[in-house]
């Protein structure tokens, strides 16, 4: 009830604000004569800041390429307006509000965290501005769980949680040949809960069993008590679909307690910080599912990796790659729509075809989820190593 009233007051405040700002400014100024403004609602600070920073690098690179080739709609340049989510769902809502009503962007790329996208989706759907998340994998982002209908203005460039959880369950059961899994969930994140649910479903369906399920909260630092409990249950595999900061500490402490079974998770693991936090030796025999590997040999990816390394002096991670693809998708949708009107862009996006991105070809299904392949990456002495590719 309290949550409901809070949301209601937030919406009311948002509507007031939107009314005010349209009252004093001209409407639809997102596309001026020379530029088309696109919002980047990204985690620039906070616990998941590396996601947002990589994403911004990817988008900047994509826009630079497109603008160098003459921009969109016959010569208009794409301009990125960034708003910071501070890695929090509430700040994402504020940022979305600001981008749409103040900056009047025609589309929004981001955020990456599922909870943040879901929180902000009410705003951009209300304003009929398309939002595309590079890495928000929870199913509820594009489908409203209340009525089961597709949200018309939400898209994603990545595959969804069921797929990541399902793929990891298959990989664990078939390739690692494990049967008794422990699942450790980040209780503050929809992303983590989603992955865990579908992992458990597929793993038990295949004939394995989940012997213990435990949870933690973001910002926790001591996991030894929980891990001791897990050790007693004696699993031969641990699934931790969390983000790198906590996962790093969990893996470090698990190995210290003498838990030497394989540990796996989702793409929230993908950060250069993980080997630093966990320690290189502790990371051996750990795996995560992802939708991108910079070792992928497609032409478009090779060119992207080369340009990215030149610009930022490091290899692109999955957030940079997916944000790059998201930016290209937005640009293609604007071209296909032959207009910079948000509603028309959304319509063109849903019908997109023949799109080739660095993370694979994208076609959207009727729930606005792309159909594409997944990769499993293994840590070998702290280095991400391409293990295998799993098709849908």
């Amino acid at each position: 009830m309290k949550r409901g009233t809070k949301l209601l007051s937030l919406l009311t405040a948002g509507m007031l604000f939107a009314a005010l700002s349209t009252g004093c400014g001209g409407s639809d100024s997102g596309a001026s004569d020379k530029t088309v403004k696109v919002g980047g609602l990204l985690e620039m600070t906070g616990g998941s800041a590396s996601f947002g920073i990589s994403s911004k690098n990817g988008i900047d690179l994509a826009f630079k390429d497109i603008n160098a080739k003459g921009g969109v709609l016959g010569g208009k340049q794409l301009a990125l307006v960034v708003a910071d989510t501070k890695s929090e769902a509430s700040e994402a809502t504020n940022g979305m509000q600001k981008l749409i009503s103040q900056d009047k962007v025609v589309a929004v790329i981001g955020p990456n965290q599922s909870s943040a996208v879901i929180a902000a989706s009410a705003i951009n759907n209300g304003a009929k501005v398309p939002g595309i998340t590079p890495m928000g994998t929870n199913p509820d982002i594009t489908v409203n769980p209340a009525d089961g209908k597709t949200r018309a203005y939400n898209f994603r460039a990545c595959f969804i949680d069921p797929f990541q959880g399902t793929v990891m369950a298959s990989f664990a059961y078939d390739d690692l040949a494990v049967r008794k899994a422990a699942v450790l969930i980040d209780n503050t994140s929809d992303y983590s809960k989603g992955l865990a649910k579908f992992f458990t479903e597929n793993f038990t369906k295949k004939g394995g069993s989940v012997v213990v399920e435990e949870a933690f909260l973001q910002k926790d630092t001591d996991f030894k008590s929980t891990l001791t409990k897990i050790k007693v249950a004696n699993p031969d595999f641990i699934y931790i679909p969390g983000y790198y900061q906590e996962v790093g500490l969990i893996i470090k402490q698990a190995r210290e307690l003498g838990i030497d079974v394989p540990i796996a998770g989702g793409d929230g693991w993908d950060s250069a910080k993980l080997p630093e936090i966990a320690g290189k030796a502790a990371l051996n025999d750990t795996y995560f599912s992802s939708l991108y590997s910079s070792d992928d040999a497609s032409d478009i990816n090779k060119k992207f990796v080369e340009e990215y390394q030149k610009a930022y002096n490091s290899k692109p991670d999955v957030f940079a790659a997916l944000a790059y693809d998201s930016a290209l998708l937005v640009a293609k949708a604007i071209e296909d729509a032959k207009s910079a009107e948000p509603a028309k862009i959304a319509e063109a996006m849903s019908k997109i075809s023949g799109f080739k991105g660095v993370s694979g070809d994208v076609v959207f299904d009727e729930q606005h989820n792309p159909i594409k392949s997944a990769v499993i990456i293994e840590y070998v002495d702290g280095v991400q190593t391409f293990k295998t590719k799993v098709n849908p």
Partner: protein
Amino acid sequence: MDTLLHQFFQQLINGISLGSIYALIALGYTMIYGIIKLINFAHGDIYMLGAYFGFFATTQLGLSFIPAIILSMACAALVGIIIERIAYKPMRNAPRIAILITAIGVSFFLEYGMILLVSPQPRTFPAVFTPTVYNFGPLVANSQQIVILVSAIILMAVLTYIVNKTKAGKAMRAVSFDADAARLMGINIDRVISMTFALGSALAAAGGVLVGVYYNSIDPLMGMMPGLKAFVAAVLGGIGIIPGAMIGGIILGVVEAMVSGFISSTFRDAAAFGILILILLYKPAGLLGKNVREKV
């Protein structure tokens, strides 16, 4: 039954190492409360600053563990004195609630000031010594846990000595007992208060460095939760009572470990704050506190 017993002792080890950190922070809370009746909500952030001082001492100055922890404690002591002089001293005669709000302000200032200075990105603490794992039958403890416990015990012993056996400690106890009477006896109250802040801050900083070494990851908001937990520990032991803070910290750490081990990790924080509520309801003076009738 055997595994249950093993699990119990393993959780006891986990709980004591966590609890000794709470105890180190709680000591500062309790000492400052004992002297000027202020709940210093910025104390958790001094702990964070201590972790950063330790981080810079090891990465920039290349110091090893013991010099780094001493340098960090000295810097934090200085910061503690400065905070007291600038933020709390002008409020000495203001209502208690005004000082409490100032403390919350100082806490935010330190948290977001550090975000500005060192960026909100978590940093990885360099490995100052390689952790060795000791196996006692099925039980596991590593050298870092032992270092935490030993450091905490040494620091608490030093503190107890200072408070009970030195002249400065006697002055502190006198001010805590009756500030006006102490002033009449010629004790420089301002200096005693500064010293209390210095001691409390140094202990928190030591806790910060130990946590940095143990968990390997520090960030500007790391002080929030441990600060609150240490506050619970101080109240549990009896706020203003030094041995109470030590006992409260250890009990809280062990309870958290047992709750996550035998019930569910999601109930851990609920248990910690549940303890606070129960203590405030049934024994507001804390475990070691005596009920003192307040004169109205």
